[in-house]
């Protein structure tokens, strides 16, 4: 699946570290969104980013800026602040997908299984999102003990309009 042309957008939480990796991702899909991780050599990536795909507003942030690291309630605050349906963050190298009244918080984990001070036993993982109308299906791919395991989670939005200022 990870061949050029199949993916429409790539959303990356950061810590690609070197430009080579960005270039590689660009070959999979030219629409690449990256936020800055603390080890990225490219200092011009933004701290946060928002984008709209279909009926969904997405927010992106590496996550080292949100303290306590990995804390769902603090991340929910960021979600409210960015006013997005889906917040994608990283930093913990642990896949999580959490639904609450304000929307969904997804952490795709580490694509490479890199060391993390926060998570012991990191399994490489990434997420594919299929956005269709008011529904998003999240497929998570994890490499556990040499085997790829796939799981899927469904989310549905209740209203078609995106949040607007009063």
């Amino acid at each position, binding site marked *: 699946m990870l061949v050029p042309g199949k993916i429409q957008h790539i959303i990356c939480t950061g810590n690609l570290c070197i430009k080579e990796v960005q270039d590689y991702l660009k070959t999979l899909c030219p629409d690449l969104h990256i936020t800055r991780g603390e080890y990225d050599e490219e200092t011009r990536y933004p701290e946060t980013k928002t984008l709209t795909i279909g009926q969904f507003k997405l927010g992106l942030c590496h996550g*080292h800026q949100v303290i*306590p*690291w990995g804390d769902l309630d*603090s991340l929910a*605050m960021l979600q409210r602040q960015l006013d997005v349906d889906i917040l994608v963050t990283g930093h913990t190298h642990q896949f999580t997908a959490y639904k609450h009244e304000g929307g969904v918080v997804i952490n795709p984990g580490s694509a490479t299984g890199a060391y993390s001070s926060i998570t*012991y036993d990191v399994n490489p993982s990434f997420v594919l999102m299929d956005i269709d109308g008011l529904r998003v299906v999240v497929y998570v791919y994890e490499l556990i003990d040499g085997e790829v395991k796939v799981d899927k989670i469904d989310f549905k939005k209740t209203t078609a309009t995106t949040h607007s200022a009063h």
Partner: protein
Amino acid sequence: MLNGTEDEEKWLAEGIAGIQHYAFFMHRALDSNNLREALKYSAQMLSELRTSKLPPHKYYELYMRAFDELKRLELFFKDESKHGVSVVDLYELVQHAGNILPRLYLLCTVGSIYIKSKEAPAKEVLKDLVEMCRGVQHPIRGLFLRSYLAQISRDKLPDIGSEYEGDADTVIDAVEFVLQNFNEMNKLWVRMQHQGPGGVKEKREKERSELQDLVGKNLHVLSQIEGVDLEMYKETVLPRVLEQVVNCKDDLAQYYLMDCIIQVFPDEYHLQTLETLLSACPQLQPTVDVKTVLSQLMDRLSNYAASSADVLPEFLQVEAFSKLSNAIGKVIEAQVDMPAVGAITLYVSLLTFTLRVHPDRLDYVDLVLGACVKKLSNIPELEDRRAMKQVVALLSAPLEKYNDIVTALTLSNYPRVMDHLDIGTNKVMAMVIIQSIMKNYSCISTADKVEVLFELIKGLIKDIDDADVDELDEEDFKEEQNSVARLIHTLYNDEPEEMLKIICIVRKHTMAGGPKRLPFTVSSLVFSALRLVRQLQGLEGDIVGEDVPVTPKKIFQLLTQMIDSLSAVPSPELALRLYLQCAEAANGCDLEHVAYEYFTQAFVLYEEEIADSKAQVTAIHLIIGTLQRMNVFGVENRDTLTHKATGYSARLLKKVDQCRAVYACSHLFWVDDQDGIKDGERVLLCLKRALRIANAAQQMANVARGSGGPVTLFVEILNKYLYFFEKGNGQITSSAIEGLIELINTETHCDSTSPDSISDAFLASTLRYIQFQKQKGSVAGEKFESIKL
């Protein structure tokens, strides 16, 4: 020279016209069954071929015209009913032609029919013809005549299973005939070098090469004869051919014919006659490019070996490897002037051969490399780029074959060959090695192999010469160092003791890399070491006492040294991050003092080295985030560090950043674990401090810009209030929250505030959150009920 070509064109045209002229009359004679006239005119036609004026490629055109006409003549000769003369008599009759060349062409033509008629044994006719052709000693004319003979006799040889085989006619006779024709043709061909029109040597050689296939064709015919089996090839054919090749002492002929033999005869024959074939090589003229001949031979044999596994035992049986390597050794010794690239190309061919035929014999592979080392040692400085490319090919071959650098690392001569490379090529080769490791997921898991590996790739690891520093393009340099960094990640061993040894060896090598390389390599190595620490954490049993070889403490000492070295670059931001990583790891190992020391280092860097305001914001958040997760500190240590963190937070340059960092610090006083700190008062103090800063920011904005500042800060702080309210911090009251909401509304609707949809939306979703919590029911719902909106 233009004149010459023009003249040649003219003569060719004249010759063709002549042929056409006489052919016309000849056809008339054929149509009227007039043998005598046919003979007369055909002889005259063939006389056109007596010219000495044409160069080979033009003579060929003339010859082809005549050849076509001779075919028609042959048809006429064959049909006795047309002319009434028996073939035996005809054979006699044509010998009356006046000039020898036409006579012999006609004789060959009749001879062809004679053999077909079977009125005489094929062998006798063939013998007669091949001898008679001696009458023409002019090189070009003779070559074409004999070529004609070869052509018409081809399908009439007394081969096994052919209709011409008989008691008296055997395949031996066929072979004799072809060999004799070959010998004579070669002699004529060689004679061209010394005779013919005087002229430049190059011109002569060019003309000769145009004729080479005429000579080579005979070898081709020999290879096609069914009856020439291995035995006959070994006993008769090859020795006789080689005899001619060696004795003719002509370098052009020798080179072409050796190559021809190799290409034309089957590989199994070559294997079985390897000794004979190779022993001819030293006997050739010194100017012959013997190395190319040998390379061709080895390439063919390599392909033969690759074609099927069944043939491999044969190679062993004939001891092909030792014969070939001996022959190569002799050639290289004998030809002292051979350029380096030639010798190395030979070794590359031999190595390819060895890898195909004897892949399991690493000792053979090592021998070849060793021979190459010897040769390279005799060259003071290898500067030829092509030679370097060949050395890279030599070194890459085992990598590709074995798909595993580990095997190559066991070859004792491998590093020695690499030693002879210049820096640039060493780096190229080092990258090839690293790429091979990546591609094959090779695991280099022992310390001594890592040592060998890093010696091999030393061109990437450090500056070897003073001369070549800084000549490298920055992009290329980055690519190189990133490859080294990746490589470090692949070095791994389950055994902590061995892994530590590996880390130490890598450290030893990379420390010599200098400030430009350290930022790349130190990170990888630090994380390798941190992984080891974590692995030790997971192990059962006590890791107490100094006599245990590997302890987290020892690794932390190493880590500190590694990160300290970054000060030489300097890389304070990277170093700060790595210190914090180590602090967390120390926390996991319950080493309070070690963790404290790391925080100290991080703070020192923050104070002294990180001046950029944006960098400071990130750095302080990393410090706060790490500190928040620490559970190993006693009260005093924790207090000191927390105090420092909050202090620096409040002193960031921009008020906005100050505010955010300070409320982040509130989490330092509240940890959700069961025995984590939960100091509600100090949390509130932090939040209130953040509020004051936000207020100050508002006022500053009013003064400086005339309009209100970021209301969003207040909403952020509100969210933090709600966070701790929910967690059960008694110091945060619902009235405080209501007050804050009111403040926000006031600020928002204040005249001087410009409308801000972002903070409006933020507030709206926050209020929605409160509503949602109210509706939750249970304890949480009750709590939130108290907030009146």
